[in-house]
């Protein structure tokens, strides 16, 4: 990322009922980035899965703030989600089996599966006392 490119930041209460605000922010940033995303629905979907996860794991009391940061890095749209909860790496959880039949199908774990499926880069880091999840979305190949 170069310094002359903007980073859009929004701090939102970590409650599921703030999801619509968080989604609107990320969709606006994705538009403003000017990148023709290979999967246009991906940022909103990943944002929801990550945001809801953070609300449940990082702030079970319904208090706390989530910082959303968006920027363009070359042909990649980057979303970073940061919270002050206890260390929690969502990427460390096992992937669900999406090939089983209805009887044995587990209803959990699909969120992480979708995050992995529609993003092009994922990185968790613990920074000071904060969890930071960086998600990358690639633009459509030219031509």
């Amino acid at each position, binding site marked *: 990322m170069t310094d002359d490119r903007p980073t859009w930041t929004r701090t939102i209460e970590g409650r*599921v009922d703030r*999801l619509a605000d968080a989604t609107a922010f990320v969709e606006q940033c994705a538009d403003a980035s000017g990148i023709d995303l290979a999967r246009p*629905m991906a940022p909103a*979907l990943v944002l*929801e899965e990550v945001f809801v996860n953070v609300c449940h794991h990082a702030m079970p009391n319904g208090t706390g703030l989530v910082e959303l940061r968006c920027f363009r890095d070359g042909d990649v749209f980057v979303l970073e989600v940061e919270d002050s909860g206890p260390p929690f790496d969502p990427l460390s959880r096992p992937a669900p089996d999406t090939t089983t039949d*209805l009887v044995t199908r587990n*209803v959990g774990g699909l*969120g992480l599966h979708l995050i992995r499926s529609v993003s092009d880069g994922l990185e968790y880091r613990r920074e000071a006392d904060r969890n930071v999840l960086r998600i990358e979305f690639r633009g459509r190949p030219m031509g």
Partner: protein
Amino acid sequence: MEIGTRKERGATVVTVAGRLDAMTTPDFDACLAAAIDEGNRAFVVDLAQLDYISSAGLRGILLAAKRLRGLEGSLRFAGVRGAVREVFDLSGFGSLFLLADSVDAALDASA
């Protein structure tokens, strides 16, 4: 999200429009649960007007499907398209459910 139900050829057709996400899925769950409680067993969910679904919506669908299976009911889908189709495909829902182009086609399909 907007949700509506109607009876068609003996089945309950549930039409869902807008977004099926962590905020709206509880209403979807409640609607299906109420219809099942009333004794309805054959369902077609029409998603032609649905623009977005997340894992919360998928979870609601799976829970309803599991409950209906125990009651020897059925849950079929019509009009799954765009981003919703993409999420269905990524989650393996195409092999779990009958996905028809239209409500009529879903009602015509044999069990």
